[in-house]
């Protein structure tokens, strides 16, 4: 197994194009587990950690560009104010060690339906910047995932960054696990309120072959929330929102939980997070 450590993005893209057997390596918190379990024997490990650009973030016009190599710890510490939903999700990832090493780009690279970074990106309408020697493209996050652990990432592409609008309203993220820390989501839910455009964003994790939005629930809430009066949330609206979120999931039974429980939990999480977010909006 070769280990290549390019120091520039251009070199990394060139190697990626040259070596179809290369596996990119960021924090390694997924890759190393796969290697240790002998699930994968890549010809080359393409270490991206020396590429400075990958670990920066900046505001670019109305959008934030968050480099693929930004760790969860930094998302929490540096972007918690601008991307509160993503920071809440980052807080639930693994343990302090995993949050120090693990990156948002790695989460997308793995494209697990249980990846905690994904639901907040869905709720916030993020876009993923993919790059190759052929050029750069922006993929809406909702089109990024194609199946369990599969995405539109082409064999010669790398994930460069995530583009996302800073929160323009309250955001929430909740995750169910069968222990109180260090646990893969049984199911998770992200919510973003966009009062400026009277829209609601959602993201469901671990309850379908890919992370996905709950489109019908979004439209329902956007239509029912009393944006003008900022009146208290009608509990029936919250409950119906929960039902619609649950209905848009397509969970399975597995070692971590049953499909029925996942649906049930999603309904509760959606109902609760909408209640909290609305309360936060109303001040």
């Amino acid at each position, binding site marked *: 197994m070769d280990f290549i450590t390019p120091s520039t993005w251009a070199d990394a893209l060139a190697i990626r194009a040259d070596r179809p057997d290369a596996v990119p390596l960021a924090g390694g918190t997924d890759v190393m587990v796969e290697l240790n379990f002998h699930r994968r024997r890549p010809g080359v490990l393409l270490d991206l950690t020396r590429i400075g650009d990958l670990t920066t973030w900046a505001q670019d016009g109305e959008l934030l560009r968050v480099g693929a190599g930004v760790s969860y710890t930094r998302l929490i510490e540096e972007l918690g104010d601008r991307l509160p939903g993503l920071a809440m999700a980052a807080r639930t990832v693994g343990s302090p060690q995993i949050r120090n090493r693990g990156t948002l780009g790695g989460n997308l690279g793995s494209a697990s339906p249980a990846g905690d970074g994904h639901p907040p990106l869905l709720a916030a309408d993020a876009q993923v910047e993919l790059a190759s020697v052929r050029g750069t493209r922006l993929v809406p996050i909702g089109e990024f995932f194609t199946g369990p652990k599969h995405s539109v990432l082409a064999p010669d592409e790398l994930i460069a960054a995530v583009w996302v609008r800073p929160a323009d309203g309250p955001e929430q993220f909740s995750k169910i696990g*069968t222990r109180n820390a260090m646990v893969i989501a049984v199911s998770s839910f992200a919510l973003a309120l966009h009062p400026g455009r009277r829209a609601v964003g959602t993201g469901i994790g671990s309850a379908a072959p890919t992370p996905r939005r709950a489109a019908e629930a979004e439209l329902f809430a956007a239509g029912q929330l009393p944006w003008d009066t900022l009146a208290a949330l009608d509990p029936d609206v919250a409950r119906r929102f929960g039902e619609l979120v649950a209905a848009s999931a397509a969970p399975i039974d597995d070692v971590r939980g049953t499909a029925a429980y996942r649906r049930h939990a999603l309904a509760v999480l959606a109902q609760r997070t909408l209640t909290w977010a609305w309360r936060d909006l109303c001040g």
Partner: protein
Amino acid sequence: MSATVHVGLAATVTGGVGASPLRPDGRLKVTGEFAFSSDLWADDMLWGATLRSPHPRARITELDLGPALRIPGVYAVLTHEDVPGRRLYGLEHVDQPVLAADEVRYQGEPIVVVAADHPETARRAVKAIGIAYDVLDPVTDPEAALHADRAPRVHADRPNLLRHVPIRRGDPHAAAAVVVTGEYEVGMQDQAFLGPESGLAVPADDGGVDLYIATQWLHVDQQQVAACLDLPADKVRLTLAGVGGAFGAREDLSMQVHACLLALRTGRPVKMVYGREESFFGHVHRHPARLRYEHGADADGRLVYVKARILLDGGAYASSSGAVVANAATLGIGPYDVPNVVMDAYGLYTNNPPCGAMRGFGAVQACFAYESQMDKLAAALGLDPVEVRVRNALHTGDRMPTGQLVEGPAPVAELLRLVQSKPPAGAADFPPGGTANTTRGEGVVRGVGYGIGIKNVCFSEGFDDYATARVRLELIGGRPAVLVHTAAAEVGQGLVTVQAQIVRTELGVDQVTIAPADTAVGSAGSSSASRQTYMTGGAVRAACQAIRTRLLDRLDGLAGELRLVDGQVRDADGGTVADVAELLGDEAIEETVQWRHRPTHPLDPETGQGDAHVQYAFAAHRATVDVDTELGLVKVVEIVTAQDVGKAVNPAAVTGQIHGGTAQGLGLALMEEIQLVDGKVRNPSFTDYLLPTIMDMPPMTVDVLELADPHSPYGLRGVGEPPTISSTPAVVAAIRAATGAALTRVPVRPEHIVGV
């Protein structure tokens, strides 16, 4: 965390019995420098790897080793035909193939072992082996396995019933005013030690082999390995390597014979280390159980009778199932005085993974059921759950269902009252769901639950249970020094520290060295059954006493009570009579002692009557939980426990055992389960076999009672297992109190709590 030690005999010697000197391995383990068995190394060593069955039940129809042998760097590829001696091994029954011959009986059963010059090459060789199976329907339901017409035999030459222990006491037809019944289930827990199975076998010039191995009982390994290799015991020498946790999972052989076979075949040292996933297939697990109970009580809540049926799934091979069944039966009504008992416990062969020893075995499964029943009884009578337990509590002088008299302290009621008397738990640090932001208080309800358990200490049923210690007192650099040599396995419990403490107390010598444990000295028995401080501690003490007698004999003419303190012989008033160094001179005094506890007796096969156990140990728990009743998530807020340890030989180690054991019981209550479908393990990893984290374990209040047992060394009572037994039912009772859910199965899952 706080710990109070009551009634302690003051420690008279620095670092002696009753003190908590620093453990010699502590700093190394914390800093990561301790050499575990997986760190063993020899310059010219080869690496072993194992081909395992992917099927729970199949016939092997084809085996082609050629492709593996042709890989450069491969030195040996061995099958059952290469086992020179006995091809089977086992702790109680010799029924488990070293390597499967034509049939495999559980997923993960070893079939071929390979040695190569690199672990990766060895793994590739394993993959290259050509093998074909005729896959058969596995027997996975223990209830079906019990009936000849409902399941085939797992072993063609014997029925699936491994052992049945009936217990009959009093009137089997007794009737009662209040009757509660229940059916319960316990999932398959894993010991989940962090140091995987590993060892290094080194071929010796005399045709024998030296094996460096992490195990719980060197001599029982030695016996089995020697028989399989067809070598005399003195040609199979074992030395204990650094053990990364045990909890029962190292009582059976794993890679011991395999590594020795490969080493003898290749003439090179062979190292084997299982990976995490392989480890889940490399050792036995806790028996899953189905338990049916009927409790009858009078209107005051006094138990009139208990009827119980316990089914324990032993999996494909016997391992220690027999002892597990006996424990479940004899301890299966709990620490209660019940005049009429009808108990039947069964152990069965199935094609599920083999089950054997795990901390508290037999007693753990039963305790979940009988304590659930006691809560049910309390509810039926409108009584407080502690009150109903206290009214039925076992006392000194009562008889167990086996007819055995309870001798020595049995502070069941006191332990219950102690945990009940603590102030209620305060607010939790965080809600159920941890940092995952699932509730701001919505749906959260508090509950409190109790549990008490009973465990036998040491080996039972007439087993010749002994420990050997060789102790040597001599002058080193002009100062008295002691060398202790035993074969007792330090598995992390602190035995090495305890042995030195005993020497300091008995011989008044500060400088004590504990030699590496190996088979050059007699057997110490197993580091299991909460027995090693009792047994090896007892042997070390007896050897020290023999040395003291010989030393003091040199002071002829001197009468009265003499003690050895600080290198001196002192009289009753503390006056110095002689100097140990002068008395000893150039000659070393060495004593080797084989020490036994009081004999036990077999159970009557029809009635289950008999004095089968040496000592009983008790612990009680009170758990306080916050439950998110809508999501089914649990945060254990506090655990209060009280345990009688007879004598806290090392209070810090005792408290550590109580914390750790309680955590393991909490794990069984809430998350730890090997999930099986059709005999196959679905979660062989720490990603999905969940162990409690620091966020799951609450602060604990620990009360340690020291009520001396007149028959044991220093009055001590085995400590390691009791805390694991009662914490499980206490946590579940607390969740029931919060939710009203029936919760008849552990681990409790969120979907059980919310009922979807």
